């Protein structure tokens, strides 16, 4: 019994993935970041 409880606790895995809603339209720059309009309006 004891062992199965500890096995249960030790199998917890964290993994997730998200995707950009704007698809490939998002900005892509080099060293410099251009804050996008949507974000700046919100801020």
């Amino acid at each position, binding site marked *: 019994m004891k062992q199965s409880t500890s096995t249960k606790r*030790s*199998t*917890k*895995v*964290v*993994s*997730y*993935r*998200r*995707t*950009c*809603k*704007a*698809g*490939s*339209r*998002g*900005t*892509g*720059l*080099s*060293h*410099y*970041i*251009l*804050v*996008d*309009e*949507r*974000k*700046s309006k*919100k*801020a």
Partner: protein
Amino acid sequence: MPSDKSRSKGRHVNTGFGRHFDLIDFGSAKNLAVIHAGSGFWALAPRAAAAGMAVSGKISRAVESKLDGWLDEMRNFRFGRRPSAVYLNPTERCNFNCRYCYLPKSMRKTGRHMGEKKVMQALKIIRDHFRAAIPDRTYKPEIIFHGSEPMLARDAVFAGIEKFYRDFRFGIQTNASLLDAEAVSFIRKHSVGVGISLDGHSAAVANRARRTWGGQGGFAKALAAIEMLGDYPKFNVIATVTQANVASLTSIVEFFHERGVKLAMLNPVRCTQQGGRDLKPDNAKLAAALTKAMDRSYELFRKTGRKLVVSNFANVLIGIVAPTARKLMCDISPCGAGRCFFAVSANGDVFPCSEFLGMDDYNCGNIFRKPLRDILKSAPLVSIMERKTEDINPCAGCAIQHFCGAPCPAEVLACAGKLLAPSPYCQLYEEHVRYALRVIEAGRVDAYLWDGWRDETRKTFSL
């Protein structure tokens, strides 16, 4: 291609056509990371169970049906984009002579201005090109006026913005020395993004590498600019990290945070030019200093509720949790050069990225003389657009290759004499990614990413 019969069925993990999972120790007492490098999949699993879960258990079974979709997602993201931004250099000249500048000295000292007429002509050419290339009329491509020092050509820059602000989103990257109240009011009125360069929290540190030709430091002017622009949402600060300020990164984070800066970059100096190579910080020192500085930014957020996003780290973190939502394109291969943007020099020559300006072999043609669609197919540009970690040793076998990207082709070329070599900052990326995995494990991702990142993305998987 072997016929289906001769292929292994891909039933076994880590052999034949089976999926390949790597295990990495990211410095957690509890977990190891299981990574499928090609798709960017990761999972944090208990140390004792992780290997079994990866090769024949919970993890490999849960993701088997997802991996092909993620491989496609990565392929589209890496190879399916078209340029939508341009770094436009309205002048070759700079009033500063920073020790690490990536542009050749003679160019910065005596170079030419593009002039207002030519700036207008370039913007028209770029607009017409994007109109034909990007069918979505609601999307505005980006123009970043970049250095040398674009404010030396202020009249031409502002005239261009005035005329074309309906066609583009604009940004200016400046040393801030020529930003006065009038310029700031123009920038705010036209919603122009502005990035200023400031390398330290005190004049002594900030002025070590950034000085005018006469030896005067830029700290005071940069500070005045922060005061004028601190509340402006489209404002960010870039600190270039060198031997001169690597020991001060935590103080720099505190200083930016106290001044109300919301977005900053702590960019390790590029080694493209000798000056940069001379000032390159030691990788281990740099990784330790950045880790401390990031910890400090987290503490400050907890204490004050105000966030200073360190965007070069944030970009690595978002590249792990939402690969297609990354904003900067240095940490993925191929990088953004030519693929997402290109650079135009003050005489109209096109280069894959500003980092290549001054390298004659990467001059892809002149925007005033050759159609952009031909320039964007030119051999030097394509050679950068095809540089990928899969072709580089040791990157091809590196679990974190799509969180790192082995940047930067220009500096790699300068340091190693060839494009297909790992990043001079390889070791830093190894630590950055491990730190990011610890941030994920601690459930602190929101504290390091910009507000709104969740709204910009959608969950597609969780275990």
